[in-house]
């Protein structure tokens, strides 16, 4: 199949999501730790172990991102979202120290995408989170591009396992173009 004919909708940039993008839909399926600030009557059946009819106030649950975005309001009447582990203080220092070493695929395959979406939830740490994501990407970018240029000649699968989805698509595009150039030369 000629890869150039099929052009899927790309994922959104910055804090936006593209409605039709398959990547963005899978990204917004990731679960976040949340705490309900108001009760949800008649939805108790969603919790497997409970016998109550409602989801009481103050329940800690893991909500998918799309639901958290849909229910979140600035005044925090309904939901309060906690940051996932990867975007908290401890991990931010790890990324600050050396971003290249971290296995981003294990940390949730959508590190950059989810991080950008977390900025919707008005946490006081937003500027630091945004800065960390940016610096991580800058730190890892060189290694990613380097490996994709050499992927033609050697097996880089060990490195690819540690990349998150954004980096993988970047690497894939670069590899494709490197192949095209190699064939012409």
């Amino acid at each position, binding site marked *: 199949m*000629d*890869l150039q004919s099929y052009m899927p909708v790309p994922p959104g940039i910055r804090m936006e999501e593209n409605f039709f993008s398959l990547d963005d839909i899978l990204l917004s399926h990731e679960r976040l730790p949340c705490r309900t600030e108001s009760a949800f009557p*008649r939805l108790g059946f969603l919790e497997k172990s*409970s016998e109550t009819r409602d989801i009481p106030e103050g329940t800690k649950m893991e909500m998918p991102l*799309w*639901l958290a975005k849909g229910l979140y309001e600035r005044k925090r009447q309904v939901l309060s979202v906690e940051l996932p582990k990867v975007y908290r203080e401890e991990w931010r220092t790890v990324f600050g120290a050396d971003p290249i070493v971290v296995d981003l695929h294990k940390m949730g395959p959508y590190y950059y995408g989810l991080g950008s979406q977390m900025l919707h939830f008005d946490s006081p740490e937003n500027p630091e989170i945004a800065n960390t994501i940016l610096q991580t990407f800058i730190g890892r970018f060189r290694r990613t591009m380097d490996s994709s240029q050499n992927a033609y000649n050697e097996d880089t699968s060990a490195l690819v396992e540690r990349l998150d989805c954004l980096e993988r698509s970047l690497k894939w595009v670069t590899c494709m173009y490197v192949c095209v150039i190699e064939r012409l030369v």
Partner: protein
Amino acid sequence: MSLLTLRRNFFNVHVITTTKIYRENCLRWYIGDLASYDFIPKKYRHLSATNKFTMFCEKAVELIRELHRMGDGQLPAFNEDGIRQVLEEMKALYEQNQTDVNEAKTEGKSELIPSIKFRHSCLLRNQRCIAAYLYDRLLRIRALRWEYGSVLPTTIRFHMCAEEMEWFNQYKKSLATYMRSIGGEEGLDITQDMKPPKSLYIEVRCLKDHGEFEIDDGTVILLKKNSQHFLPRWKCEQLIRQGVLEHVIS
């Protein structure tokens, strides 16, 4: 007196801690990471920050995953069953929301509003998944026209539903109209030569008697059935399209 133990902390540095705290921390890490861990012993249940919740819209995301798995543009079979299930879920959610909205309006029960918003988000999510599923399939079908030409192989045709087939025919017609309108009188087939051609001359075989054929440098070639010639590409293309000549790929 609690035993002291040596362990490695987050930064891989050895620290001294008590065995009890070490054990609780391990479990905290273990349970916190495994959100899908079914059975947690009662005495450690307070360590689990999250309960196990199911959610709506799982079937819709499964449809999307099915497409996402085939990243190279192949068209999988149309998952009519999946779409039907998602639509049923949407119908159930909508009906529940209708009753709740009526109740909230007539009896003034404003505490139902968070649940209404919850279900509404689920409905929007299902709608988004179905729309993205159908749209991505159309993008793949569009790519098929450029890949296989006007006539699709039967295996692929079975993967398309009736409406998609209809869309494909309309797309073919639009493309043909456009190609006829450019490139002068006869039109220009832009689906040919997707990659730059390797050579200027190609080997062709004659399929039927066409008579005499003059090429640019003045030479006249007699096109008789089953004769093979080595001719300039641009001269042959039209005859190949008409079915008089056949490109021989050795």
